């Protein structure tokens, strides 16, 4: 029997008003037994645990004078190709390690290993992004050397990875010209979170309707401080600017350990 109105009807709802004025209704299947309740103040950020682990990762990188970057993009923007070329071109200049994030397979791990860098693959299963504790566990497997550079290739996704701090120095968003120049406006969170935007596959510019000036302006609408570099990881065009950016970040990150 319904304790609220005394009827025998199991499937109807009653609206309740709580002490703070919030009103809602429950169905009878709901466990609202009218038991006395106590309010408990929590004020806990949902991402507090992830952010605490990210802070620990960040301190770990700083203590080892490492530069850690979080590479994000939609699937197929060319993150792995960019990494392969970067590893080959900068061989001997930096000690580069890679954490690969994908829902499944170790295809990317094999490509990175073939390019000559130590790599550990994190499979996120149903997860659409990497979280800080997965990076911490990945570091435990990869064991990157002090004064090395860690490039984290996040799961291909322009939405979720924006929310999860991994402890990186910066997020680098890769956008390829085949994806269209409206992406910064459609996925503002990612472009707001990124420090650098790499516009990849510029060798295909003659074949697609992609306006570099427009995409840069859109990205700066959501994030006025974002830097932008146009390149092709396939032909190598523009890669030197990316390496110059890495060099600057490397210098700041490694010197920050003593700042």
């Amino acid at each position: 029997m319904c304790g609220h109105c005394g009827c025998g009807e199991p499937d109807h709802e009653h609206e309740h008003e709580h002490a703070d004025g919030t009103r809602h209704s429950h169905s009878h299947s709901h466990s609202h037994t009218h038991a006395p309740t106590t309010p408990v103040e929590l004020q806990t950020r949902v991402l507090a645990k992830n952010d605490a682990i990210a802070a620990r990762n960040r301190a770990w990188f700083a203590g080892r004078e490492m530069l850690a970057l979080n590479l994000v993009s939609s699937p197929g923007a060319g993150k792995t190709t960019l990494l392969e070329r970067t590893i080959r071109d900068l061989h001997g200049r930096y000690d580069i390690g890679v954490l690969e994030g994908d829902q499944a397979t170790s295809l990317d791990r094999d490509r990175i290993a073939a390019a000559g860098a130590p790599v550990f693959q994190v499979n996120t299963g149903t997860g659409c992004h990497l979280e800080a504790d997965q990076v911490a566990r990945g570091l435990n497997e990869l064991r990157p050397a002090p004064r090395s550079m860690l490039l984290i290739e996040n799961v291909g996704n322009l939405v979720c990875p924006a929310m999860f701090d991994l402890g990186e120095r910066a997020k680098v968003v890769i956008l390829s010209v085949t994806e269209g120049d409206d992406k910064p406006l459609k996925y503002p969170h990612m472009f707001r979170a990124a420090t650098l935007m790499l516009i990849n596959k510029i060798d295909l510019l003659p074949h697609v309707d992609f306006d570099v000036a427009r995409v840069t302006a859109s990205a700066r609408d959501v994030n006025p401080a974002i830097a932008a570099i146009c390149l092709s990881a396939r032909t190598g065009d523009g890669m030197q600017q990316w390496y110059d950016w890495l060099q600057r970040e490397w210098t700041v990150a490694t010197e920050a350990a003593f700042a």
Partner: protein
Amino acid sequence: MHELALTHEIVAIVCQAAGDRRVHRVILEIGERSCATPESIEFCFDVIARGTCAEGARLDIRRTEGDDLIVTTMEIEEAA
């Protein structure tokens, strides 16, 4: 669907604070710029809370400005 991961975290936060007491209501603030969709969290909550101290709890979501996602308050059964 990062809301799935977020909702796991929400349930973990309230269950840890509730101990073995039953949670009747959870109040969540979602910032407009938080990149989390309220409908998705509502959808995930009932499923993820099943079998925990928050099973059957009411989730009330308040939209705020800004980019944070905060479990502000919960109501739990009074201690016996």
